[in-house]
């Protein structure tokens, strides 16, 4: 590992450190994150509305699908997985991987019992 971690690469060329950052400075951070927040709010509104559609199970699928989309946005942009090192990404994927095994094996049992009842 070098002294320069991948995280220390900030967008644009970093101005020299001073007490008065360049005027459009904080705007960079907002421009990167605010659009994600707008999309998250739109997804929340959509999932609330979709829950009232008269399609039964499809409503449930939409609800959880939107939760997955929100998770992807938060993880990639807010949690900066998009710019994370390979090691960090593997660890993050491991959590989901083991959870997937937990769900697959348990639901294989539960669903096959339900189908054979």
């Amino acid at each position: 590992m070098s002294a320069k971690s991948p995280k220390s690469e900030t967008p644009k060329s970093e101005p020299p450190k001073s007490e008065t950052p360049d005027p459009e400075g904080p705007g960079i951070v907002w421009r990167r994150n605010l659009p994600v927040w707008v999309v998250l709010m739109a997804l929340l509104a959509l999932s609330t509305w979709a829950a009232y559609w008269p399609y039964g199970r499809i409503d449930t699928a939409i609800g959880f699908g939107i939760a997955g989309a929100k998770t992807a946005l938060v993880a990639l942009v807010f949690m900066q997985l998009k710019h994370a090192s390979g090691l960090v990404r593997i660890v993050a994927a491991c959590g989901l991987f083991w959870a997937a095994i937990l769900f697959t094996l348990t639901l294989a049992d539960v669903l096959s019992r339900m189908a054979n009842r």
Partner: protein
Amino acid sequence: MSRVEIEARLREPWSELETDPGTAFARQRDGATLGIWIFLASEVLFFGALFLTYTAARLAHPEAFAAAGRETNIVYGTLNTAILLTSSLTMAVASQAAETGLFRRLTLRCLAATAALGLAFLVVKGFEYREDIEKHLVPGAHFALDRGPAQIFFAFYWLVTVVHAIHLSIGIVLVVRLTVKGWRDPDILAENPQVEVTALYWHLVDLVWVFLYPMLYLPGRSG
């Protein structure tokens, strides 16, 4: 950062690393990020097991879960989801602003906003709990709904929302701690890995709620 500034952020002991403070600090930053992600992966499994219990019970009792889900207050639930998603925005901005080391006031304000939004969530949740108790939605002898398995839904509701509230309270304490530290010494938050670690934990607690929202508030709305 100057050598003095870096040394203020380094965790002891680092002298065994046999390297200069700059390299040692970069390694400690990477170590902090990796460490919190390992913890978050274990949290995913902790909440994953709870969510799986819910899934199995809901598959077995779909009608009772729809009837029970209709009883939760969707206004409070949706409001709280919006509050937490917004707090993740302010937390992300605080963390990324701290990382550049340039925008001290922005970092501090966003940290304070995050803590305030976290507290707002708990206040709304408190009002919701009061309403739930008044509606006899606590499993037990005086439970309001006649369907037996609806009690499983509300047992899960109470367990998981309380566990989530405990996680959020820990997050608020951590964010307030950083805010106080940054308020006393405006330079301490710049490039400090503690901000990123706290932020990543905060986002995970938000994501847990993102999944609880369709589990607890959306079932049975169309029926």
